[in-house]
């Protein structure tokens, strides 16, 4: 396995981590602001996180 591929995959995973972190953080803030909408926010958060996660797996499979 070449080193550039590994470094690239690592960068993608860092990006995915930051992305999912932001999604989770924003969802927390949104729940804090609107506790009543907890269920809807959680659903939207999970879908968005799943979509971002797919990109991370694409990078891992390139390695």
């Amino acid at each position, binding site marked *: 396995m070449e080193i550039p591929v590994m470094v690239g995959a690592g960068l993608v995973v860092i990006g995915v981590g930051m992305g999912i972190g932001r999604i989770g953080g924003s969802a927390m803030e949104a729940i804090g602001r609107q506790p009543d909408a907890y269920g809807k926010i959680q*659903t939207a958060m*999970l*879908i968005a996180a*799943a*979509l971002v*996660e*797919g990109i991370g*797996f*694409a990078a*891992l499979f390139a390695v």
Partner: protein
Amino acid sequence: MPLVLNKFYSIFTLFIVIFFTVNTVQAKDAEASGDLKTEIKEYITHHLEDAYDFSLFSYTNKSGKHIYIGIPLPVILWDEELHVFSSSKLHHGLEVVASGNKYYKLDHGKIYRTDASGIIFYDESHHAKNIAPLDLSITKGVASMILIATLMFFLFRSLARSYEKNGGVPNGIGRFFEPIVLYIRDEIARPNIGDKKHGKYMSFLLTVFFFIWFLNMLGLTPLGVNVTGNIAVTFGLALLTFLITNLTGTKDYWLHIFDPLGSSMKWFAKIPLYVILIPIEVLGIFIKPFSLLIRLYANMQAGHIVLMSLIGLMFIFKSWLGSPLSFGLAFAISIIELLVALLQAYIFTMLSALYFGFAAEEHEHH
């Protein structure tokens, strides 16, 4: 209901008792003495792949023989005529099986037709050149799916029957599953598909949710099955979503794909836009189920790889530090995997419902 479950357990026990056998195979010493890291890698790859028999564990005895303990499964091949034999005859690729007037041998996880001496020819890139017959075998994955399907059948039949008997109140294990069924109806199907049409999609959504969830959970048991981490299985599930979405698509669904702008523009203004828009929309029909299949496959595959690699750490460290570290990490990941097993089933059902919602939509025309 306990009666039905008892019946199920007795069938299961019978299955185990009849088929539980011991296979003895001479060890290939040349391979076993290889590099430790390569060996662990091979072990993980072997675990991720489907197998012809349900081997539970294996060990090498004092006389250098490799003993496999497990359940052999039927091998079904179509090669001009039907060939059916037990997978124990394959002896993990060490012996040639004579069936009818043809000979078969297992090589790197696939069955090939050979001559009586069992020679496999390889090309430059070390792929077998022999003819591979059409393989319809009941493999480990297929057997697990049949097991889960049977379990689900008895479980939900008994849940449905308990409503009849008790007048709308579930009993036994149904008390655990009823809220989940209601959650899928009220939180997944209704908001995404709509109050009017969600009924006809419910059977698929419930089946696919419990099927994926149970198979994911089965993958976490020490049986070592990896069904939802098999791209063919997730392909099949995503294909069903694809077919249901497109076969139940309303006029508005197809109009949205082939005429997304509707009457908001003159026809000659739409032409240059549609050169780009329509191919994107048509591609979208295929990308949606494709992302479903890749997500489930990759998540389960990655989970298994991480878990097996952490267990492999124990053999790499070879010190007092290795075992607790390996155990602790593997335990923590197992707990996360329990969550992932449920989450992936939920996401698959949720996104399927979302796509069905697109297919079932009906606009009010202005």
